[in-house]
Each structure stands twice: as structure tokens, then as C-alpha cells.
């Protein structure tokens, strides 16, 4: 079996993204949906039920008082926040353990990077028209999911990949593609397809390291930009370092200035302090 076949056959065995999430998302898209209907769907997933309460009480979501029951949580947090809470708790399971080893990421760092990108993407929606904040948050959480599954293959070829990055001055993903036949962004796109996420989300994950991402669909541009800033801040960055390409002139179409970027990074740092509890899911 060729290397790439080996990698792709691994994807066949990726556990499904919790089905309950899709059901809940559908329900939440209808503003008439009440807490009771939601609770009925959520209660079957014990991990999500436990996490919803835990996350609702995290300082990040800033609820006025402590929630103690699922019903109460659903009433208090509101539809939009609840979507984020559910997708956060459902995604966390895929980032447990030494998932970023191949990239020399300490345990928990890939998740921290993902949460940071999600939070930043949601905030940057104000600069990039036409993206739903909930979608931005979800794609932010999942944009590097390919790393989780490519990690062991990266570990096998680590030396050659690093040599290529240093010698050819190429980006880490270019070296992944060259040596493994597929890079983590491509693999992530395939996984999101398998999980039946909408096409625009698959595409944003697939293209998040495309140097011209800022000229593409708004969601793709938003995720590539958020990822680039989180990488610049050094949050959850491994051996790949800052060796990623993104042509910044694409920002002009959104009217985003370097000062805007600085301010977003400064704000993110504070948000991250509030989101601490989310990292320990």
C-alpha cells in the first residue's frame, strides 16, 4: 500500500462526529425551538450533557449566575452560545492525548491552538462580511483536525520534512505534501466531508494554508487569517513554527489594517484568559 493510501485508509476509521450535534444544529436554526426539545436530543450524549454544564459555567460565556441543570442551561445561554458550547464539547474528544506529537506539540497544545483560532475567527467576523459567527467558530475549532491524524506520519518523516523546510525555504504544509503525498489541510477537508459538514466548511479547512486564501471565499479568508494571527502569537505552535504562507495584500479587500490586526491579537490574549476552562475539556 502506498503512503497516501495508508493515510487515507486511516480516515475510513475516524470515529464519526457526534450525530447529536447535527440534530441540535438543525433544531437551533429554528428560533421557535424550545429548551425541552433540545434537552431531549442532548441528554442521550452523556459527554455533551456533562460538558454543556461545565462550559456554561466557564467564565468565558459570562453567564450572570451558575447553572445546575441542562434545562436551565438551555434557557439561559441562548441559541447562539449553545451552538458554540455544543460544538466545543463535541470537538474536544478528538484532541485528547498526545495528538500533536508528530508536530512536537505538547499535550493539549493542538486543542489550545484550535480554541484560540475559533475565538479569534468569531470576533473577526465583524471585518469579514457574510460569515456566520457560529460557522466561523466551528471551522476555527476543526481547521487543524487533519494534524491529529497526520501526526504519526509526520513523526515518521520528521527529519526529511524539517530539512526540506529549512533548505528549500518552503512552508511546512508544502513539505508535508511533498513527502507524505497529502498535507494536513487536505486531510482535514476530507475528514469534514466524511463528517458531513457543509461544503463551505470543508473548503475553508482544505484551503486554510493556501497562500491566496485571503482572495477566496469569505469563510476561507477568515479562517486563514485567524490561523495566521494565532500562529504569529505562538499559541499552540509546534515544529512547523511560522513556516506558513499567506499573501497579506488580500486583506485590502476587507479594509483590514495592521492596527486592526494588532488590536485583535491584544483582545484575543484577554479572551484566552477567560477561556482557560475550555482548554481542559
Amino acid at each position, binding site marked *: 500500500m502506498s503512503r497516501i493510501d495508508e493515510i487515507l485508509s486511516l480516515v475510513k476509521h475516524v470515529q464519526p462526529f457526534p450525530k447529536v450535534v447535527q440534530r441540535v444544529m438543525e433544531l437551533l436554526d429554528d428560533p421557535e425551538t424550545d429548551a425541552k426539545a433540545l434537552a431531549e436530543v442532548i441528554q442521550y450524549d452523556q459527554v455533551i450533557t456533562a460538558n454543556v454544564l461545565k462550559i456554561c459555567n466557564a467564565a468565558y460565556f459570562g453567564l450572570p449566575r451558575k447553572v445546575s441543570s441542562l434545562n436551565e442551561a438551555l434557557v439561559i445561554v441562548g441559541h447562539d452560545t449553545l451552538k458554540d458550547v455544543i460544538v466545543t464539547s463535541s470537538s474536544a474528544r478528538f484532541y485528547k492525548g498526545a495528538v500533536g506529537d508528530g508536530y*512536537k506539540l505538547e499535550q493539549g497544545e493542538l486543542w489550545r491552538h484550535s480554541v484560540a483560532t475559533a475565538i479569534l475567527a468569531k470576533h473577526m467576523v465583524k471585518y469579514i462580511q457574510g460569515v456566520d459567527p457560529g460557522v466561523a467558530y466551528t471551522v476555527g475549532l476543526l481547521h487543524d483536525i487533519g494534524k491529529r491524524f497526520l501526526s504519526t506520519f509526520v513523526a515518521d518523516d520528521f527529519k526529511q520534512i*524539517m530539512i526540506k*523546510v*529549512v533548505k528549500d525555504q518552503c*512552508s511546512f504544509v508544502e513539505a508535508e505534501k511533498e513527502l507524505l503525498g497529502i498535507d494536513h489541510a487536505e486531510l482535514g477537508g476530507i475528514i469534514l466531508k466524511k463528517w458531513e459538514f457543509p461544503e463551505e466548511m470543508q473548503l475553508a479547512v482544505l484551503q486554510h494554508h493556501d*497562500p491566496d486564501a485571503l482572495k477566496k471565499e469569505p469563510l476561507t479568508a477568515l479562517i486563514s487569517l485567524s490561523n*495566521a*494571527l494565532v*500562529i*504569529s*502569537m*505562538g*499559541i499552540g*505552535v*509546534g*515544529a*512547523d*513554527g*511560522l*513556516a*506558513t*504562507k*499567506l*499573501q*497579506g*495584500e488580500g*486583506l485590502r479587500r476587507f479594509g483590514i489594517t*495592521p*492596527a486592526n*490586526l*494588532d*488590536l485583535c*491579537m*491584544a483582545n484575543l*490574549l*484577554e479572551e484566552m484568559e477567560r477561556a482557560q476552562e475550555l482548554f481542559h475539556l
Partner: protein
Amino acid sequence: MKIVVGISDMKVSNQPDDVLITYSLGSCIGVVLWDPVAKVGGLLHYMLPDSSLDKEKAQDKPFMFADSGIPLLFKETYKYGAVKNRLIVKVVGGSQIMDNAGIFNIGKRNHAVLRKMFWKNNIMIAKEDVGGTGNRTVSLEIGTGITRLKVSGRGEFEL
């Protein structure tokens, strides 16, 4: 004792057994100070060049910015008996992602402000490892002044 310096954070020590360390400097810059006589060391990890971006934040988190963080780092080492002209100054970090237009040149801007401030205040840099696309971790042994740098793609070495 290992003392971790986070993003937008600063630590100073005169305990010989202490090691100050900051992980994952991307575009951020780490400034390492050490006085070989007083055996005092300090480490700053700042993220952005200019505190005028947000005065309120600068008040709350002065170590986030070069212009507010660097003077505080020096002053804090003086409190422990360090003397300006004895201080050995090392500067690391300031990487940036690959962008031909230079829009994401946060690292370069971070470094430019530091150089300007040091030039104005007659501060010499003893060692520097700045720029590129590597991710850096730097540590300082207070007792010996040994500074270790780890850069992705280049391994770990003494600076």
C-alpha cells in the same frame, strides 16, 4: 525553580537556582537581561510594538507592548541591584509568517521598536537571534547567566 514567563509577561529573579523560561515566541520578542555581578536576571515576553494601540490595555498589561514593557523590565532588575552598564542584553524572537507584502510583519515591527529604544538609551545588545520563520523557546539560568535557545528546525543551543 523553573519560572515560566507567559505571553505579555515578565519575571525577574536573583535566586541562583531559578531558571526563567518562555515558550513559543513567534512574532513576539523575548528580552533577556543578566547582571554578572549582582547575579540578577530578567525575562520579558512582549507581543506588540506600541502601547498607543490601546492605552487601557497598556495600563492593565504593560508587558504586552515593547514601549511599556521594556523600561519596566530594566527597572525591575535595578530593584534587585542590577546596574545598567553591567547588564548583558540578549534579544530573541520576532519571526513572521511568509508574506511577500509584509502585512504580517509583526515580528519586524516588534524588533524595530526595540532597536530604536535601545539606541536612544545607549543599550548594547550582546547576542541576538531574531527573524525567520522559526518558533523559539528561551531560558536563562540566574546563577550562571547561561541562556539557552531552542528554535524549530535548528535545534537547541547556547546563545
